[in-house]
């Protein structure tokens, strides 16, 4: 991390307390609205409009990475870093048609697990739950660790204090507000992130013009402008594929489908994807100013806070703190809520205690939110540096679910044994590719093998699935 914090400790404390109180108060307030049943707690009453639906997709997909790692790849890879990162928006775009089909086929469903269980049976469902839990846990831990490290770098907070604060705040308002609290705070967080990023970009490029940045890059760092940079192209391809795996399988996105009004589902994914795509390009463009000004960047992952503080002074550091705090909490709340839905609905209600009441499902979801929050704190307690490797591992797992999900939604012949084999073999070969070839190949190999197994298995032994069975949660 940087040698000295960018923000005065007093200001940092004020911002942390102020935004923590704000998020918790709003979460609790929104949580008191609605009918108070399980559908309300898990899915905000299933009637979210276009604005909130779009904003919650946007906020959930803008993680701490989008505001820190996107500038980093812009700084290190240049244009293909920015554009490649923006390709992660593909996941949202491509899920839009699937989302409206899910909404039509499964009007009463609650989770992605409901689809896999009803479409492919319990064996495939168990494999799917293992995959999505492994991914979710990795995602939660990285956000928790990221929070600790970022607050430490920005404000000099102890790593554990920052980590516990951010996870604690997100857990608290998710617990009391449920999905309604998450969606409501996501709306404000997304607008805050977008507006402040515009402010930083406009003020930054007011200090040093676009042409000056281009001139400096062309003269001193031409590789950053090279559209044929091999590493950049590889990065872009991997990012697009990984994002499809993440969005297609994870309950964060499925829960948004179930929570939104049918008339807004398709549009919200398209609009959310379009809005999100601009964020990594803008943050990457901000990072390019660091190259143009020859700013000393001891650690490339801190390029966005450093250049912002350099150009805009302490005001810039405050803006960065707010953007990153909003990004982290908006992602953590979505993960906690969606994972709690999945565990309460799939593991508790359909496996451990079948036949439990709606009120018991709601109570189970609340307990899971607290449990997951505490587990994330525990697993993030000791910072370790091998998370990068761990997450590329999960790329092999989630990419194996792309084709079973997509084919299962459109193709009645998609076979349940093939789907199970596709997930298992895709994951295994993806992990082998990760270890034997290169980590970046993991998602690609996994998706390719999974597609082959799914397609051939279903062709040789076609199933005659009746879509009406999906309506019966």
């Amino acid at each position, binding site marked *: *991390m940087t040698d000295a914090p960018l923000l005065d400790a007093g200001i940092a404390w004020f911002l942390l307390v102020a935004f923590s109180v704000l998020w918790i108060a709003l979460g609790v307030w929104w949580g008191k609205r*609605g009918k108070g049943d399980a559908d309300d707690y898990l899915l*905000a009453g299933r009637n979210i*409009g*276009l*604005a909130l639906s779009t*904003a919650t997709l946007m906020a959930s997909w803008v*993680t*701490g*990475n989008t505001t*820190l*790692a*996107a500038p*980093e*790849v812009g700084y*290190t*890879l240049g*244009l293909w*870093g920015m554009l490649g990162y923006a390709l992660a928006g593909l996941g949202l775009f491509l899920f839009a048609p699937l989302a409206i089909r899910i909404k039509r086929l499964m009007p009463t469903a609650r989770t992605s697990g409901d689809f896999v269980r009803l479409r492919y049976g319990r064996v495939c469902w168990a494999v799917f739950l293992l995959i999505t839990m492994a991914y979710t846990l990795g*995602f939660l831990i*990285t*956000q928790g*660790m*990221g929070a600790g490290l*970022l607050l430490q770098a920005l404000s000099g907070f102890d790593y554990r204090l920052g980590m516990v604060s951010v996870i604690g705040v997100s857990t608290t308002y998710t617990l009391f507000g449920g999905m309604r609290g998450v969606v409501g705070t996501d709306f404000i967080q997304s*607008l805050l992130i*977008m*507006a402040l*990023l*515009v402010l930083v970009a406009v003020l930054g*490029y007011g200090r040093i013009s*676009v*042409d000056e940045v*281009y001139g400096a890059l*062309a003269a001193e760092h031409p*590789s950053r*402008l*090279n*559209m044929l*940079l*091999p590493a950049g192209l590889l*990065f872009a391809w991997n*990012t697009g594929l990984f*994002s499809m795996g993440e969005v297609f399988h994870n309950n964060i996105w499925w829960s948004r489908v179930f929570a939104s009004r049918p008339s807004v589902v398709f549009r919200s994914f398209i*609009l959310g994807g*379009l*809005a999100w795509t*601009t964020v990594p*390009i*803008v943050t990457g*463009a901000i990072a390019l100013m660091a190259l143009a000004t020859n700013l000393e960047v001891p650690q490339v*992952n*801190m390029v966005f806070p450093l250049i912002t503080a350099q150009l805009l002074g302490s005001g810039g550091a405050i803006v960065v703190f707010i953007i990153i705090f909003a990004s982290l909490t908006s992602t953590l709340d979505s993960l906690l809520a969606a994972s709690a839905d999945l565990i309460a609905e799939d593991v508790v209600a359909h496996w451990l205690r079948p036949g439990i009441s709606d009120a018991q499902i709601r109570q189970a979801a609340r307990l899971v939110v607290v449990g997951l929050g505490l587990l994330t704190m525990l697993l993030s307690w000791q*910072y370790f*540096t091998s*998370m*990068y490797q*761990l*997450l*590329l591992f999960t790329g092999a797992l989630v990419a194996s679910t792309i084709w079973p999900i997509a084919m299962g939604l459109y193709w009645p012949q998609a076979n349940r044994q093939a789907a199970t084999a596709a997930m298992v073999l895709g994951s295994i070969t993806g992990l082998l590719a990760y270890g034997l070839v290169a980590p970046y190949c993991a998602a690609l190999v996994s998706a390719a093998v999974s597609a082959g197994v799914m397609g051939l298995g279903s062709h040789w032994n076609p199933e005659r699935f009746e879509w009406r069975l999906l309506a019966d949660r």
Partner: protein
Amino acid sequence: MPLLITALITANRPAFATTAPTTQWLLPASLFRLLVVGSIIGLVVATLVIVLIWLKELRQGQVW
């Protein structure tokens, strides 16, 4: 998306793509300007669109 949060955790790893490539096509200045300015305008428009939709839905009682 979570793929790259790891980048900030692996703080001291070197930049991985700055070696000189064999083939180059530098983006022209006009397209670079279009990309930077266009993305900022796109973000502004996206923000305004979400706010305007919210205002419309608020008036019609369709936010939730």
